[in-house]
């Protein structure tokens, strides 16, 4: 009993922090979403689901939702694919590997606002670096209005976001790859397994949990993306690059409609919870086994 009581004491500081920094803001967001919140005097009246209905009736909501879904799927897919390729490459021993690893990490270390501005200068239609380079090497026919045409702008912002986000996944996957015992590969090679078979039957199963975790985190991050889009296009042209993160910001701080902004945030939170539940389901088997094996008790 004493041991159990002491255990709770150990987790008390973390619990207090969690309640203050996560539970309370989430609770406030939820209460704003179902009330007609007024800034003056912090007053509010319960309105049920009215804010949710109002948000969905907004002229641009469906477009924003569509953009967000494409954004999440494409960024996460390409970030993961690129991260896996680079991680596999960096898992091979070669001279100068440490230097390449540092270079590969650079996009992640640059603040979003700085990288956003850099990409803005690169993608600038008229006198930008990309178009100037294309003209200089004789590929003038490939010159594009990178940020000035809706579809092209979406592609350009996606590219910048993939570039910026892949190193996080890469470093996580690389740490997983380094933990795979070498003898498993040696045994497979003796058995005549091809590189793709080794990847499929040894690499992937060994880092499955890490894959699930990084993809989950990256999906959540992609849903919340704001800064790089804000700097590159501000959501334009014509809302072509506007996703939920920016939409919430505009609702809150252009329209000062905190209740509707909170309603969208709650929808976003609901999606994140679904993703987390999915992650728990996918990793349940392994977690359960460890739990049972070690018989962890408080």
């Amino acid at each position, binding site marked *: 009993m004493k041991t159990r009581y002491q255990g709770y004491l150990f987790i008390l500081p973390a619990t207090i922090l969690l309640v203050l920094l996560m539970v309370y803001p989430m609770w406030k967001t939820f209460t704003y979403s179902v009330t007609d919140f007024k*800034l*003056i*005097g*912090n007053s509010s009246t319960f309105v049920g689901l009215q804010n949710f209905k109002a948000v969905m009736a907004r*002229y*641009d909501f469906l477009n924003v939702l569509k953009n967000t879904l494409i954004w999440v799927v494409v960024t996460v897919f390409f970030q993961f694919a690129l991260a896996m390729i680079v991680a596999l490459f960096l898992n091979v021993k070669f001279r100068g590997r440490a230097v390449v690893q540092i270079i590969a990490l650079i996009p992640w270390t640059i603040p979003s606002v700085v990288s956003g501005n850099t990409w*803005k200068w690169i993608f*600038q*239609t*008229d*006198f*930008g670096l990309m178009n100037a380079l294309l003209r200089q090497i004789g590929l003038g026919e490939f010159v594009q*209005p990178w*940020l*000035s*045409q*809706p579809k092209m*702008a979406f592609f350009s912002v996606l590219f910048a976001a993939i570039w910026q986000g892949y190193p996080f996944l890469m470093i996580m996957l690389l740490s997983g790859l380094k933990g795979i015992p070498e003898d498993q590969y040696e045994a497979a090679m003796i058995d005549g397994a091809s590189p793709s078979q080794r990847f499929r039957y040894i690499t992937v199963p060994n880092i499955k949990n890490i894959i699930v975790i990084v993809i989950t985190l990256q999906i959540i991050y992609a849903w919340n993306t704001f800064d790089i889009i*804000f*700097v590159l*296009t*501000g*959501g*334009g*042209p*014509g*809302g*072509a690059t506007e996703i939920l993160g920016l939409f919430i910001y*505009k609702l*809150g*701080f*252009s*329209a*000062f409609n905190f209740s509707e902004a909170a309603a969208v945030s709650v929808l976003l939170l609901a999606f994140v919870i679904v993703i987390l539940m999915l992650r728990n389901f996918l990793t349940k088997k392994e977690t359960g086994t460890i739990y049972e094996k070690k018989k962890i008790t408080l």
Partner: protein
Amino acid sequence: MRKKGLRFVMVCMIITIGALGMLMASGAKESVVEAPPVTITVWKGSWWNNQAPVVEAAFNATHRNQVDIQAYPFEGLVEKYVVSIVGNQAADILAVDNNMLPLLINEGLLLPFENVEKSDFSGAIWDAASKDGKLYGIPFRADTSGVFYNKDMFDAAGVAYPKENWTWDDFLDIAIKLTKGNQQYGFGISGSAAAATDFEAEVLPMIWAFGGDIIRDNKMVLDEQGAIKGLQFWVDLANKHKVSPAGAVNYDNKDYIEFFLNGRVAMMMGGSNVIPMLKEKAADIDWDFAPVPGKSKGFGVAYAIPVSCKNPEAAREYIDWFTTPEILSEYTIRMPARATATNNPPWNDPMYVKVMNAAVDSKSPPLNPRWVEIRAMMIREMQKVLTGQTKSVEEAARIMTQQGNTMLGN
């Protein structure tokens, strides 16, 4: 005789005791009134970073109360203000521009000022700070947007400089003559969603020049012919006449300053804040300023006291000090909001005088608390016209009017 002397002594004693009592009472009263000095905080835009210590030193040396000026980036400033006021964490004084003012006033987040004379304060920003006969901000900056032009490029193309009473047709004619393929443009339109004030500085004067308006009696009037013509003129600069760079839908004033310095655009919009920058960076360019044809967009900044202010009297003391003409003239780094503060250097520089003269006839953007939201919507819809997503300006005007009216609660 002895009795008389005794009476004299008693009267003297009574007077002395009375005087002592009064002195003590007044002393006691003074000790109640004399509150301990406080340090008031002021939040302003980041461009005040270098000047803040100078202003602080000047105020602190002459006052019991002290001031601490903190500068923050303009992006996100209004969010910071609102969240801080609601959370009782805001500074005692906030520098609020003409677009933020109606919004904060409407939300009941600012305290009204008593006993302030209109005097020589600039009209546009004074109006933005007023509601229902009450004043919620004391202006310290007044400005307007006009056309900065590269005289060297005009000379090279053999084009006459803008005349004082030029029209938008003259402007277009000049812009066409100064455009050379995709290497040099006559003018640059600001279509970026990230810099809404640059968009309004161009579009509003064009709408007004064609007899249109945006909001009238709390109703959108963008679908009226005057407004449509103004919007069409703006779109045509890029899409029809191609006097503006191809990427204009994503450009703002910051981009055009670079293009201007590199000789890529001959004319760009800007306020008085562009003057010191051009004086420093464009020393090898012969440049000048011309007011926009017709009415320009007036803008400015006022000092406001949030409802969460802990030291409103001390805050008022600082604001009154800073907005005194002599102090304002000496310590402000943007064009002063008082005519009498513009008699001294650098404000009597001919270039500043030109901007000031243009500001006299300027007009304020809609003084409506929903304007910031409506403006964001307008940019999005006009971007759709620029990129061909919406077929015509008429259709965009109809959509904007409909959406704007919803925002206005109509």
